């Protein structure tokens, strides 16, 4: 003890009694003393010197200390001192007041001593064995020492622990230690142990770490708990991050369900402690780790499903809409929700249905977008909202459609703020960040969705009062070309980059949009001017994007604008820009320093607002169009570079392919049209049928009336006969008149009969013609078959199918026509029938009545004919479309014309008939004038009596 006092407290007499000397003496004692107490005292002395003389103790005493660990196993006190001393020399205490230099020196020492300690892997094994010692004085410093060793030389120490039997398992037991200090330091040890080592992570998980850690978190009060909760969460993160085996285990073990209660926050979320914020932050990260876009797709999908089913997503959305949540937690919650819904239809649908508890309730999406285009919101929050929106639309055609629909004239709801309105507002606001975010957001509504690309072309914007509306596409290019003229907060490049990315996404793979874009005369000159100019460094990206946009205009050009065909655009590039120059400018995109960063992962994260330039999905588009490697040209470069010969060849091949494509599209169009026509015709047939029914009832009524008249006529004839008998000679004229009448009538009947025969004959002729037409129609298709190339058999097959569809639809149409014809015929036959049978009618007013009915029928018939004419017109237009497609069909067309002429003839004949009927009627009228007076009353009585029987006759 004297010795110690000498070292510790004594004034240094004369020349410095160096620390090294003192330490050497202590080491000697540790090594040679036979008394345990002496050794223990010496080790304790070393311990007390180990901080001040770290270097000396480390260099001179380490071996002795390790020796003690091996030989003095029975005395926990000396073991404790030795471990403490070793800890002091190995651990790099991060003291705050230490300057950088001193810290570095300290780190170097720690690394050096750690290396010395682990040179023999047995030392680690020894340490692991000591940790089985329950005594607090051994276990605690043992844990701390191993943690320090892991901190300094993680990989090597991990390797040694991994191969020592039961090494990891033993360390896992620390979590079960009832002494909190050991358990808590055990957590820190396991954090270091599992860092970046998947094999250890799996063993730790196998040893029930998830269960243990989740229990501890619950016991400690979840997010309200202290730093222990934080340590548990950090360890969980280590175990799950990028470890699909553990992720599966976590999911299969139903541990996702246990995360849900973490997020049950109250209504009042003000005044959260810093620890609570930290805990919640880590909890959110843990959720994200399970559904990260970089995970294996299967894991993420099943975890997303589970998070919805157990209500975790719903819980997160509650936080999203809650008040008082600190901004950084809100931001991370948005990011978390984003990844929980990304690409999962069910979760996306749920998210779309979430409403903010505002009055009136607004969709969460709308509320979030409001923040995205609000300059006062923190940058990271705006990024998070953009990410959320992107994830909502990722692989979500339905959602994309819903967003675009809020911009379409037909579906705009003027009463509430819509997502579309906010996006347009952002697109054209004076804040460049809003411009960029809105442009990218809108681009995501179009991603891989041709329908929406086309739909968006319909969007019109109201500009200033009195001016005509301008299309959204137009407005984007307007802003683009106005460029520097507009006063804007933020970076001008950002706005233009955003708009250019939107335009590239919009028109790529969408020839109609390309045509729309090219249709504006100002656009191509603007692009060529941008690309060809020699602009400064910060304009290079804009130039590259302009080149890409122009390239897309070439690649997806369907040559429908004469001034802007592929060929003409290429010539333009050659003349104004030069191919090499163009390709170089195109390369500015991928060569940009921020490009590869954005290509890494979907989440938009930028160190500063100015660096917000590339969107992840856009980098995918560039990759698709321009390839990843600079050596391998992309499709755009190829399209521009191609020689005119190659081009021609390819054009030819393409043309034939396109032709077939076109034919197919046109047929599809035709079928669509004809479908509509058929629908219309069907409706007409239905209405005609009902008209026919009406007419039939009218006819039935008329027939019964005619019957009555006949009866009356017979009675009258009888009466007349009697009168004739009494006044035989004087009344001879009358019977002569009557006799003549009957004769004439029968003659007329014969004539009518003849006409009917002719009519039927004509009908059959028409029928034959129709058959002929059909055969003619089918023959040109067969002839077309072999002329097409054998490599296009697929297209041809499709064509055949389409043709046969056209065929069947044509036959359907002709069937309908026949039906109609039949109806007409029947209607006319009826009216024809009624007339001759009414010959016996003798009542003038009755006849007038009949006549008016007949006129009504005639006009009905005329109506029918009108609609028939309409139908024929429609048929004509359908047929003419077919004609454009197939010149062979011209022949057919003439046939159709001919048949139509014949039909006209038939109509003429029918008209003749009509006239004859009229004349017949006239004659009847004349005849009728001879009989009238009292029958009128009788007839009326009988009509009402006979009503019931009439129906049977009809």
């Amino acid at each position: 003890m004297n010795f110690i006092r000498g070292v510790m407290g004594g004034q240094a007499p004369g020349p410095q009694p160096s620390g090294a000397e003192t330490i050497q003496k202590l080491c000697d004692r540790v090594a040679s003393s036979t008394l345990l107490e002496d050794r223990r005292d010496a080790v304790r002395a070393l311990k007390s010197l180990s901080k001040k003389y770290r270097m000396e103790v480390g260099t001179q005493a380490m071996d002795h200390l390790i020796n003690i660990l091996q030989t003095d196993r029975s005395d926990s006190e000396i073991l404790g001192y030795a471990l403490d001393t070793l800890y002091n020399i190995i651990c790099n205490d991060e003291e705050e007041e230490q300057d950088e230099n001193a810290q570095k020196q300290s780190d170097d020492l720690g690394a050096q001593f750690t290396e010395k300690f682990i040179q023999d892997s047995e030392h680690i094994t020894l340490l692991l064995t000591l940790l089985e010692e329950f005594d607090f004085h051994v276990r605690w410093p043992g844990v701390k020492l191993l943690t320090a060793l892991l901190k300094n030389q993680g990989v090597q120490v991990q390797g040694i622990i991994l191969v020592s039997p039961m090494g990891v398992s033993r360390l896992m037991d620390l979590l079960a230690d009832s002494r909190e200090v050991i358990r808590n330091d055990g957590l820190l040890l396991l954090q270091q142990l599992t860092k970046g080592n998947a094999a250890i992570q799996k063993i730790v998980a196998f040893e029930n770490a998830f269960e243990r850690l989740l229990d501890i978190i619950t016991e400690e009060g979840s997010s309200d708990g202290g730093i222990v909760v934080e340590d548990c969460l950090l360890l969980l993160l280590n175990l799950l991050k990028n470890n699909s085996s553990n992720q599966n285990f976590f999911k299969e073990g139903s541990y996702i369900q246990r995360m849900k209660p973490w997020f049950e926050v109250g209504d009042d979320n003000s005044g959260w402690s810093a620890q609570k914020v930290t805990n919640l932050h880590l909890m959110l990260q843990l959720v994200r780790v399970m559904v990260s876009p970089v995970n294996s797709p299967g894991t993420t999908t099943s975890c997303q499903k589970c998070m919805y089913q157990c209500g975790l997503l719903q819980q997160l959305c509650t936080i999203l809409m809650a008040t008082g949540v600190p901004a950084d937690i809100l931001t991370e919650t948005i990011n978390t929700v984003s990844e929980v819904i990304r690409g999962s239809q069910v979760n996306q649908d749920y998210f779309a249905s979430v409403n903010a508890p505002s009055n009136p309730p607004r969709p969460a999406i709308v509320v979030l977008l409001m923040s995205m285009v609000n300059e006062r919101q923190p940058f990271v929050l705006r990024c998070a909202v953009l990410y959320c929106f992107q994830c909502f639309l990722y692989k979500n055609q339905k959602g994309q459609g819903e967003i675009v629909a809020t911009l379409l004239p037909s579906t705009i709801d003027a009463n509430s703020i819509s997502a579309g309105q906010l996006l347009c507002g952002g697109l054209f606001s004076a804040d460049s960040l809003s411009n960029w975010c809105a442009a990218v957001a809108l681009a995501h509504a179009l991603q891989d969705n041709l329908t929406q690309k086309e739909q968006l072309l319909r969007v019109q914007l109201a500009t200033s009062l009195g001016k005509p509306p301008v299309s959204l596409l137009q407005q984007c290019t307007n802003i683009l070309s106005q460029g520097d003229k507009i006063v804007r907060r933020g970076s001008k490049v950002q706005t233009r980059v955003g708009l250019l990315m939107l335009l590239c996404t919009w028109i790529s793979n969408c020839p109609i949009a390309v045509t729309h874009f090219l249709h504006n005369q100002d656009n191509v000159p603007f692009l060529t001017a941008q690309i060809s100019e020699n602009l400064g460094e910060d304009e290079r990206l804009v130039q590259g994007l302009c080149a890409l946009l122009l390239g897309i205009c070439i690649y997806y050009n369907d040559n429908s604008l004469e001034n802007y065909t592929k060929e003409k655009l290429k010539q333009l590039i050659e003349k104004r820009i030069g191919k090499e120059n163009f390709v170089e400018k195109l390369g500015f995109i991928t060569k940009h320093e921020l490009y590869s960063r954005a290509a890494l992962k979907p989440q938009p994260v930028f160190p500063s607002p100015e660096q917000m330039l590339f969107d992840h999905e856009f980098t995918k588009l560039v990759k698709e169009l321009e390839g990843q490697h600079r050596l391998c040209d992309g499709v755009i470069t190829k399209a521009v570079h191609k020689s005119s010969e190659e081009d021609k060849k390819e054009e030819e091949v393409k043309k034939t392919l396109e032709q077939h494509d076109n034919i197919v599209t046109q047929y599809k169009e035709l079928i669509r049209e004809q479908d509509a026509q058929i629908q219309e015709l069907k409706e007409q047939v239905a209405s005609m049928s009902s008209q026919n029914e009406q007419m039939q009832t009218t006819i039935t009524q008329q027939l019964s009336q005619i019957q009555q008249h006949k009866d009356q006529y017979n009675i009258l004839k009888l009466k007349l006969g009697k009168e004739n008998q009494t006044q035989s000679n004087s009344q001879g004229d009358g019977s002569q008149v009557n006799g003549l009448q009957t004769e004439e009538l029968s003659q007329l009947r014969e004539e009518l009969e003849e006409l009917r025969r002719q009519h039927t004959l004509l009908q059959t002729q028409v029928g034959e013609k129709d058959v002929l037409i059909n055969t003619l129609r089918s023959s040109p298709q067969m002839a077309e078959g072999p002329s097409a190339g054998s490599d296009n058999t697929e297209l041809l097959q499709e064509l055949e199918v389409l043709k046969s569809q056209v065929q069947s639809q044509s036959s359907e149409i002709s069937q309908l026509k026949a039906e109609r014809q039949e109806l007409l015929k029947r209607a006319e036959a009826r009216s024809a029938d009624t007339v001759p049978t009414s010959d016996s009618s003798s009542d003038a007013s009755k006849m007038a009545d009949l006549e008016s009915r007949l006129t009504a029928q005639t006009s009905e018939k005329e109506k029918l004919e009108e609609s028939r004419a309409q139908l024929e017109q429609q048929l004509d237009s359908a047929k003419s479309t077919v004609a454009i497609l197939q010149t062979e069909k011209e022949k057919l067309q003439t046939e159709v014309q001919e048949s139509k002429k014949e039909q006209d003839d038939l109509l003429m004949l029918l008209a003749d008939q009509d006239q004859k009927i009229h004349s017949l009627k006239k004659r009847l009228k004349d005849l009728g004038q001879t009989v009238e007076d009292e029958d009128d009353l009788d007839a009326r009585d009988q009509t009402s009596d006979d009503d019931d029987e009439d129906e049977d006759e009809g």
Partner: protein
Amino acid sequence: MAYAYLFKYIIIGDTDKRFQPVHDLTIGVEFGARMITIDGKQIKLQIWDTAGQESFRSITRSYYRGAAGALLVYDITRRDTFNHLTTWLEDARQHSNSNMVIMLIGNKSDLESRREVKKEEGEAFAREHGLVFMETSAKTATNVEEAFINTAKDIYEKIQEGVFDINNEANGIKIGPQHPTTNSTLSSSQGGHQAGGGCC
């Protein structure tokens, strides 16, 4: 899914990747799960398929202690894998808890024409070392389910006999959340509680 018991299994045995590209190898350990029914009870199996490669042997050893069952697999078309069984068995017995149920599996029974190890040999080895034996084909799924079930049956019987301490999770057995607490010590010894029957 609610379950009555949860058993941890490991799959061990020689690697089958001697002639295959490296990326086919099981790296370390891969986790999988499946559900079976025994005696009308749902039993959840958590299976750790370990790498057969020698270099992963030390890692594999870490899994013995916490497993309730082990499937020791050899390839009936490769005698060397059968010859190595003794080494595997020694290793397993040394590092596992004494109650671990080991099932011997002769895999690839579909490749009868290339068979190098007779079924009788497998049976004899199993009898000698007190193992349950089965031939399976992972390719045609023949006997695979049965192998998992038979192992589970053995563990289940041991539980009924009271051989296993079901309250010590370190044995690779856990009682499910819905299990009726027939054992009086159960409620006090289990600190944490399992979230009620999950969705996935």
